Each structure stands twice: as structure tokens, then as C-alpha cells.
């Protein structure tokens, strides 16, 4: 349940992307013409809330986590992550949190107050049914998983690097994951508190956000965005990492300005905590706050710009190969720049008075998220697929995916800039005729369907590939630079039979250039200690799931029972020592040993 799962859990996570995408398609179908009646107003708000929530929390982050899980230990030459048990626990809590959230569709109404769930709309007075309860509790449970993941990756990267792998020799993807994990660690607890307070308000009549009893609605906005803004960098930084790897490999060149890249990543992470109020320019925080947060936000353009130029100069003078992964990475760069530049436009508070909560914002964040993050994930999936599953994805279908997705993407979201400028607010379930919104919305809807086709092409690719033999080479792109390409595809359970000795940045590339066949081992062949699989994380998550339902429906016995299940598992885990098992040298297939 630990290492093996690392790869197979993939599919569960992908499903959420499909669900979120399906919701997006339904949103777009409703909006394809004015005064459409495809879904009701209530239904639309549910779709929109669940689309945002699912995509951010259940699709994008877990997909990134899947990549991190598969690749980080390999890149730093570790056998596994630092806490395999937590890893598994994080996965299950995330899954059950996501399930709980989606159960709401079948129990009389999904959450419908937007993914930001602003109070008092999300309070009991105006959302009396259980929809928002599902949001609060589902995200709380899923959030635990994310937090555990963050701690796990940080500890892994700090403590488990192979000999010689100093911080400044770490691959860029590892670096970005490291910073992302730190952001998770410092951002998610704020969300935890916010959700807990909202939960207390909703379930136990607390007054945090209830103005009638002195509560403050703006407090929720602050707490949500103190978490929410770092969250968007949590999403994008790993994508930056993926792009760095892919661009280098397929340009056959060393990353331009590695140390400035590292520095820029840290700076983005740090500044990310200082800018949350740019989502609240119209809330009325006063000119001093608006001015300061405007400037702080704009500053982020500087380190991000450094990254963009470094990528371009990595390609400069390189020898670029256009595989699907590389296409996605190259498509990423101009797309993300557009999203970033609109971000800087939004950052100017007076201008944001006009843009805020209009489709201009929708266009901005889909450019950075779909054009940035999702393209990055696609690049990463195509790039590392052979390493994860031992099979190369079909390049022709891959290119079809790229073309349809890329064109569809720009069709969908480019026109939304203009919709916003024309005065179309976001989160509207329909719009009146005669306002000049019709044509652009139609284009946008067609684009969304194209994106859907692109996604389906990718699914087909996966299915076709799964039927083929596992014959990917260790270094299938031939220009692999980092450690993961030094071992077999797919990576064996224990990753490295012998921990490799890292002699420089781009460890494998260095060996290649020095004419070596592979990595030099840092230790003699010996027996490998492995943790035993455990069912406890699963049971714990089930306990939380049950507890969530119990509290939601005010059945405190069931709630308590769920919590007891969880704590009992913790006790068992603490009392029972896990001695693990050993893989002896003669059991290691020759395949994994590359010394």
C-alpha cells in the first residue's frame, strides 16, 4: 500500500479532473446562448462551485502529488519518501474528502456559494441546506491529506538525498516541489482554521461570520485568501519545475541560470504570502492597504519573468526536439506569460475595480491554471509516463491531444478577456440578449468542447498504451539528465538497488558526458529495508468520512464513532512497531542494478 500504490492510484485522481471538466462543459453549454435554460440557476451555482473546488483541490493538486510521489524520490536518489505511512494516509484522506464532497450531488444539493464560499451567503441563514456543509467537511478532510503530503515531501527532500546531492545540485523539479511543500505547510493550516470556524458557525451556531451576533464577514475573506493566494502558487510552482525539466531535456541543454531559478522560486513562494488582499480590492480595505498590496503583487512579476527568460535562453542555441511533452512545455511559455500579464493588470487596484469579478478574471486564471498548470501536467505526464508505467505514450495521439487542447484552450479563454471588458460578470447562470455577449460566448463554448476532445484523445492514448508491452528504455528520451533516467522503466519498488553517488548538477548527464554508462553506486549491494504495507490509513480515512457525516447530520454518536475509529487506528499504529521486511540482494532483478 505504500510504494506500489504510488503509480496505480493515478487513475482515481484523474477521475476528478474528468468530473471537474464535465462540470466545466455543462457550464459552457448553459452559457452558449443568452437566456438559456439548459440548467437551472441553482444547478448552475452548484456546478460552478463544484467545478472550481474539484479542479483546484481534487484534480490539480492530486495530479501534481501523483507526479511528485513518482518522481521526487527518484530524482534525489532515495528509496522512498520519508513517511510511507503518511503518504498512504494522505492519499486516502484526500480520496475520502473528495468522495464526501461529491456525495452532495446525491443528497439534495451540492455546495453552491462559489469555491470561495463567501459568508454570509455560505452561512446557514442563506444556505440552509447541507450543501456548504459538504464543502466545509469535505475540504477539511482532503486538506489533511494535502498537509501531510507537504510535510512528507519536505522531510524527504531534506533528509533523504543521495550522497553528493547537495541542495544546489537538486533538479529544478525537486526544488519547486520543496518550495511548494513549504507553501502547503504554511498556507493550509489557515484554511483549516477558516473551515473549522465556518463549520462551527454552520453546525454549532457559533458567530464567527454572523453579523447579527457581532461576527465579521470580512474575516472569512481574509482567512480564505491568506490561504488562497499561496494556493495558486502551490499549483503553479511544480508546473514550473516540470517545464524546467522538459525544456532542458528536449533542448539537450543545461538549465540556463540554475541558481537564479532557485532564487526566483523562493522569492515567488515568499512573496506569495504577502499579496492575498489583491482578491479583496473592492472589499473596501482602504487606500493604504490597496496600494501596498498592489505593489507587492506586481513585484511577483520580477522573479516570474526571470524564470520565463531563463527557459527561453535554455532553448536558445539548443537542439530542440518536438515531442508531445516538449510541445506542451513550449506552448506553456507564451500562454503563461499572457496569463501573468493579465495578472499584473489585475494587480493595479484601480483597474481591478473594473476587472474584478468579471470574465476578465476568469480569463486570467484559466490562462495561468489551464494554460500553465494543466499544460505543465500534460507535459509532465507525457514526459514521465514511461518512467512510471514502462510504456511510451503514442506520439501521434499525443500531438493530436496537444493541438486540439491548445487551440480549444485559446478559443475558450481568449475571448473571455473581451467578455469581461464588455461588462460580463462572472458566476452568472445566464445573460440577457442584446448585450453583445452572444458571439463570444458561443466561441468560448466551442473551444471548451475542443478541449474536451483533446482530453478524450489523451484518455484513448492511455488505453492504447496500456495494451502495449512494457518495453520503454531506461532513458527513453535519450537525453535524460537527472537521476530518474538512470534506473529501469518502470522504476523498481525500491527505486535504487544501490544508492547512487551524485557528482554534480544534472547527475546522470554528468556521468554521460564523462563517458560513464550510469551512476556510480555510493554503497555496496546489500539487503534493502522496506516498510510493510498497512491497512490503517484506509481505515482512518473511513473513520473521518463517517465522522464527517455524523456531525453534518447532527448525529453525534456516529460522529464520535468515526473519530474513535480514527484515534484507535492511531493508537494501533503507535503501539505496533513496523519492522518492515527486507529485499535481499539475490532477489533484486538485474534490471534495477545499474552500477
Amino acid at each position, binding site marked *: 500500500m505504500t510504494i506500489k500504490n504510488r503509480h496505480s492510484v493515478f487513475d482515481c485522481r484523474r477521475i476528478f479532473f474528468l468530473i471537474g471538466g464535465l462540470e466545466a462543459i455543462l457550464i459552457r453549454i448553459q452559457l452558449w446562448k443568452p437566456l438559456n435554460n439548459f440548467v437551472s440557476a441553482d444547478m448552475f451555482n452548484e456546478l460552478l462551485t463544484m467545478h472550481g473546488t474539484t479542479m483546484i483541490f481534487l484534480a490539480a493538486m492530486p495530479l501534481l502529488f501523483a507526479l511528485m510521489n513518482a518522481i521526487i524520490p527518484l530524482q534525489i536518489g532515495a528509496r522512498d519518501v520519508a513517511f510511507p505511512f503518511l503518504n498512504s494516509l494522505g492519499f486516502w484522506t484526500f480520496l475520502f474528502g473528495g468522495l464526501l464532497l461529491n456525495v452532495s450531488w446525491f443528497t439534495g444539493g451540492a455546495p453552491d456559494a462559489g469555491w470561495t464560499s463567501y459568508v454570509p451567503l455560505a452561512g446557514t441563514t442563506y444556505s440552509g441546506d447541507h450543501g456548504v456543509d459538504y464543502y466545509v467537511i469535505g475540504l477539511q478532510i482532503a486538506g489533511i491529506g494535502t498537509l501531510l503530503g507537504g*510535510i512528507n515531501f519536505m522531510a524527504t527532500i531534506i*533528509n533523504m538525498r543521495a550522497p553528493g546531492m547537495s541542495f544546489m545540485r537538486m533538479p529544478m523539479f525537486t526544488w519547486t516541489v520543496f518550495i511548494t511543500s513549504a507553501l502547503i505547510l504554511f*498556507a493550509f493550516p489557515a484554511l483549516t482554521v477558516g473551515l473549522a470556524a465556518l463549520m462551527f458557525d454552520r453546525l454549532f451556531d457559533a*458567530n464567527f461570520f*454572523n453579523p447579527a451576533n457581532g461576527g465579521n464577514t470580512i474575516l472569512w475573506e481574509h482567512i480564505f485568501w491568506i490561504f488562497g493566494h499561496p494556493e495558486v502558487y502551490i499549483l503553479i510552482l511544480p508546473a514550473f519545475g516540470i517545464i524546467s525539466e522538459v525544456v532542458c531535456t528536449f533542448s539537450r541543454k543545461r538549465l540556463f541560470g540554475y541558481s537564479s531559478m532557485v532564487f526566483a522560486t523562493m522569492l515567488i513562494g515568499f512573496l506569495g504570502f504577502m499579496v492575498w488582499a489583491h482578491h479583496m480590492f473592492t472589499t473596501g480595505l482602504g487606500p493604504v492597504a490597496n496600494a501596498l498590496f498592489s505593489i507587492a503583487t506586481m513585484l511577483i512579476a520580477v522573479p516570474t519573468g526571470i524564470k520565463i527568460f531563463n527557459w527561453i535562453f535554455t532553448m536558445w542555441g539548443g537542439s530542440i526536439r518536438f515531442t508531445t511533452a516538449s510541445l506542451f512545455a513550449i506552448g506553456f511559455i507564451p500562454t503563461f506569460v499572457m496569463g501573468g500579464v493579465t495578472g499584473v493588470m489585475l494587480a493595479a487596484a484601480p483597474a481591478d475595480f473594473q476587472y474584478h469579478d468579471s470574465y476578465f478574471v476568469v480569463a486570467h486564471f484559466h490562462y495561468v491554471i489551464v494554460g500553465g498548470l494543466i499544460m505543465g501536467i500534460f507535459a509532465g505526464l507525457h514526459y514521465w509516463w514511461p518512467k512510471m508505467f514502462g510504456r511510451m505514450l503514442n506520439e501521434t495521439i499525443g500531438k493530436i491531444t496537444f493541438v486540439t487542447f491548445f487551440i480549444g484552450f485559446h478559443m475558450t479563454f481568449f475571448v473571455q478577456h473581451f467578455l469581461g471588458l464588455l461588462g460580463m460578470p462572472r458566476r452568472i447562470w445566464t445573460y440577457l440578449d442584446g448585450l453583445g455577449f452572444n458571439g463570444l460566448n458561443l466561441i468560448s463554448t466551442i473551444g471548451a468542447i475542443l478541449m474536451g476532445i483533446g482530453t478524450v484523445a489523451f484518455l484513448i492514448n492511455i488505453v492504447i498504451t496500456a495494451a502495449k508491452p512494457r518495453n520503454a528504455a531506461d532513458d527513453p528520451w535519450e537525453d535524460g539528465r537527472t537521476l530518474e533516467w538512470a534506473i529501469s522503466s518502470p522504476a523498481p519498488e525500491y527505486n535504487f538497488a544501490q544508492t547512487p553517488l551524485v557528482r554534480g548538477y544534472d547527475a546522470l548527464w554528468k556521468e554521460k558526458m564523462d563517458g560513464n554508462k550510469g551512476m556510480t553506486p555510493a554503497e555496496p549491494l546489500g539487503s534493502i529495508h522496506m516498510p510493510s504495507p498497512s491497512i490503517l490509513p484506509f481505515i482512518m480515512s473511513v473513520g473521518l468520512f463517517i465522522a464527517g457525516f455524523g456531525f453534518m447530520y447532527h448525529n453525534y454518536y456516529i460522529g464520535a464513532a468515526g473519530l474513535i475509529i480514527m484515534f484507535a487506528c492511531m493508537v494501533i499504529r503507535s503501539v505496533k512497531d513496523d519492522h518492515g521486511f527486507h529485499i535481499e540482494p539475490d532477489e533484486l532483478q538485474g534490471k534495477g542494478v545499474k552500477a
Partner: protein
Amino acid sequence: MSAHSHADGKLPHEPEKATLEGRNKVLGFWLFLGGETVLFGTLFSAFLALRHQVGEGNPTGQELFQLPLVALATFLLLTSSLTSVFAIQAMHRQQTKQLISWLVITVLLGLGFLILEIYEFYHYVHEGHGFTTSAFSSSFYTLVGFHGAHVLFGICWISLLIGQLMKKGLTVITAPKVYVSAMYWHFIDVVWVFIFTVVYLMGKVG
């Protein structure tokens, strides 16, 4: 039973860091505490934002808080922090018996703290300061209650570890757990320093 734990000779000097698992645990726990800092920071922020929202006719903090009681609770918790340090020192000297005794004292002090807090809450509710009374009361109980829940968790956890120490003795597996639980306990103490400052003392001032 100690014979079993020391079967392969003696323990290393810092048993909590002797194995990679142990080192991971200590580091991971530090990180976890970093997250907890943000958690409590946010709770403090929420409390600060709402602490004057008492509402008509409800008791204010100034009227409610009884500083002698809080001072006593503070003293108990501070002392327990000291005894948990002694426990770790005993562990480094590999005196399992002393280690266990110090841990027991720590738990008892923590329990005392918790009882005082429960008494205090009980008293407040009688004064008309319930969880749902006002924004101030909700944020007060949430902040102080979160801390109290942490204390409770710590008590249960350390008790469990005492049991394990008695059964398995001090090993490279139990040592990191003890070490980490002591870190946790100090952290609770540190949070309390801010609670009595921000909630009680500042509340008394107005």
C-alpha cells in the same frame, strides 16, 4: 525487560536520532509544528478581530476572567514543560525509570491544567458566556478550546508512550517518539504563553 531493548548492546547517545526513521520523525515533527504555528496564528488573528464583539448584555472578558486561576494554570503548564525536559535528559542518560517518572509527572501536571480549564469553562457558561453567545465567545472558546484539545491529545499520547516504554523499554524506536512528544509538549506551553498574554491579560486590560 530492559534486557530485551538492549539486546544488541547499548543504545547510541542520542537514541532519537540514531536511525533514519528517527531523524525523519524529528524533522517531520518540526515541520508539523511549523504548520501548527500558522494554525494557532490564524486562530489568534480571528480572536483579535472579534474580541470586542461581545454584544449587548453579555459579560466581557474583563468581567469574566479570574487571573489567579489563570496564573495557577499557567504555573502548572510551565512546570510540566520543565519536567518534560527532565524526561528527555533522563532519556539521554538512558535511565528509563527516571524517564518514565518524569513523564508521569508531566502528564499529571497537564491533567491538572486541563481540569482547571474545564472548571473555568463551566463557570463561564454559568455566567452567560456560552459558545453561541457572541462572536467574542465563539472565538474565545475556539482558540482556548483548540489549545485545550491539544493538551488533552498530548496527555493521551504521552500516557500511551509511558505504556510502551514500560513494555518495550527505551529503544531506537521508542526514543524518537518520546523526544517528539516532548517537543509537542513544549509547543503547547509556548502557545499558552501567548494565550494568557493575549486572551487573558490583554482581555483584562480592555
